[in-house]
């Protein structure tokens, strides 16, 4: 049962990721990327990372993709006026992507000899354990990420302003 769910979610994720790249309109790309993110959230649920799945849907589908859609609508890009690369360059891009995939798969050859996980703790994905790890082992990175957000916010506002007089 779980393996069929895995195959289904993987198929949806890969198909929609390809459609992100090959669809004509940017709005369609955003919508397919949202479907991909939901499929990945399904993988997180299967892997017993329930809180992470919820955060993933809220942050990616809820915040980041809405930002993308907002920018696309603000710039009025929903027209098929986008010039494409020449056919030779596009063919080269496909070949390069395929070669990268083959190289990575070849480099990770041998991973199939890893044993299946034995007894895994089912509750590490719950909010209590994640919070304990976050605030005990990763307290400094957590605080630094708040500074990162502050600087990103200031930078986005500065860049988005019309003209600096």
């Amino acid at each position, binding site marked *: 049962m*779980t*393996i069929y769910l*895995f195959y289904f979610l*993987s198929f949806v*994720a*890969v198909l929609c*990721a*390809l459609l*992100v*790249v090959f669809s004509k309109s*940017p709005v369609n*790309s955003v919508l397919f990327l949202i479907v*991909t*993110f939901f499929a*990945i959230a399904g*993988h*997180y649920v299967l*892997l*017993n*990372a329930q809180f*992470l799945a919820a*955060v*993933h849907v809220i*942050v*990616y589908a809820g915040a*980041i993709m809405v*930002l*993308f859609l907002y*920018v696309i609508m*603000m710039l009025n*890009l929903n027209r098929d006026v*986008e010039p494409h*690369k020449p056919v030779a360059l596009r063919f*080269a*891009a496909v070949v*390069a*992507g*395929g070669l*990268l*995939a083959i190289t990575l798969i070849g480099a990770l050859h041998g*991973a*199939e000899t*890893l044993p*299946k*996980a034995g007894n*895994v703790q*089912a509750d*590490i*994905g719950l909010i209590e*354990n*994640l919070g304990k*790890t*976050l605030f005990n*082992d*990763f307290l400094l990175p957590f605080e630094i990420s708040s500074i*990162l*957000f502050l600087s990103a916010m200031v930078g*986005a506002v500065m*860049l*988005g302003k019309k003209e600096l007089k």
Partner: protein
Amino acid sequence: MSAIQVIPVHYYILLSVVLFSIGVLGVLFRRNAIIIFMCIELMLNAANLLLVAFSSYFSDAGGQVFVFFIMAVAAAEVAVGLAILTMIFRNTRSTDIDFLNKLKW
């Protein structure tokens, strides 16, 4: 019962590799800067999926906390990146990256 006990971990490695390669393919294939941003998000998500899979495999919550940090960095990157993109659009009236060749030797 976790999926990692049923599904071998190299299936997750293969899925992540395929998603990452599709992200790279999109960056090389398209000229629209917004699509390129979305493909970068796809690559970050491939890495996230692998981190969660191995965090589940080793029963270590550290991997999932790393995913939080990647999400935080991705959110900050998108905010700044889209602000830069609107600036570019305001100056060139286009999101085509091939217009931005001033720094090319």
